[in-house]
């Protein structure tokens, strides 16, 4: 885990890649989350809705970003985690998670505010995120 002294405002977090994602990853997440929208696994349904093929569940890449952050800061330490969805993610995409410290607080308990991002390799931003973690 990252030490408080390494978390100056503007410090960047070590980036990490996930994937390439597969249709099986989408299905596995749908089973785990309870979101069974067929647009994420049924090719005929996706095409009928105007898409070339099924695309990932936004909350899957959000969850991967959550795993990236809790691996760095600890599962019990998250206090806020927010995402906004940009580009869709497709089977075959490799995702790069990265982040930066935007603020830090020492009133009472030590906390850091983070800006987070999921980028598609060879593509654009899939998710912009923000998080707050306690740093024990």
């Amino acid at each position, binding site marked *: 885990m990252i030490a408080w002294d390494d978390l100056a405002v503007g410090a960047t977090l070590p980036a990490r890649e996930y994937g390439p994602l597969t249709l099986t990853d989408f299905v596995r997440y749908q089973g785990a989350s309870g979101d069974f929208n067929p647009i994420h696994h049924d090719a005929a349904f996706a095409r009928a809705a105007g898409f070339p093929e099924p*695309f990932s*569940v*936004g*909350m899957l890449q959000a*969850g991967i970003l959550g*795993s990236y952050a*809790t691996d760095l800061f600890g*599962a019990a330490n998250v206090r806020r985690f927010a995402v*906004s969805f*940009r580009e869709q993610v497709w089977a075959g995409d490799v995702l790069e998670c990265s982040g930066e410290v935007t603020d830090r607080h020492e009133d009472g308990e030590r906390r850091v505010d983070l800006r987070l991002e999921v980028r598609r390799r060879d593509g654009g931003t899939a998710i912009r995120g923000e998080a707050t973690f306690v740093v024990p």
Partner: protein
Amino acid sequence: MVDRSAIGTTDDGYTMEVERGKIREFARATKSADPAYLDDPAPVIPPTFLTTQQFWSTPGAGVFSKVKMDLKRLLHGGQEYVFHGPPPAAGTRLHVRTRVEDIYEKEGSRGGTMTFVISVTEFRDDDGRLVAEARSTAIETARPPVEGGAS
């Protein structure tokens, strides 16, 4: 057509059990190998785990049935979770209630009106203490979504 009179309405609420096996399944599905999720006998939940609330609600009974959004034009714009202390751990029972916080319209960048529906879900423990809150932004687009939009 989205019904703006739905602002302020709440669902009937329901109870959700936080379970170790679901946490393990969810952690693996979101590519975490953290023993805090996989090996701890009473793991805390991952940051986005409360999305599994949909396993506990009654289909068709949620606030979205009152908002009357067109599901073919529905996008998930964003999601936020706030935890008032460490995230709840396996074995916790959560009392869940969702309200429609706001509904507003915006002109889309590709033309057409987009409608934004903001819903807030509160998760309380058996003592009534507010453990976590979720804020969700749903978007009804002017036409079915196209590649490059939100997911």
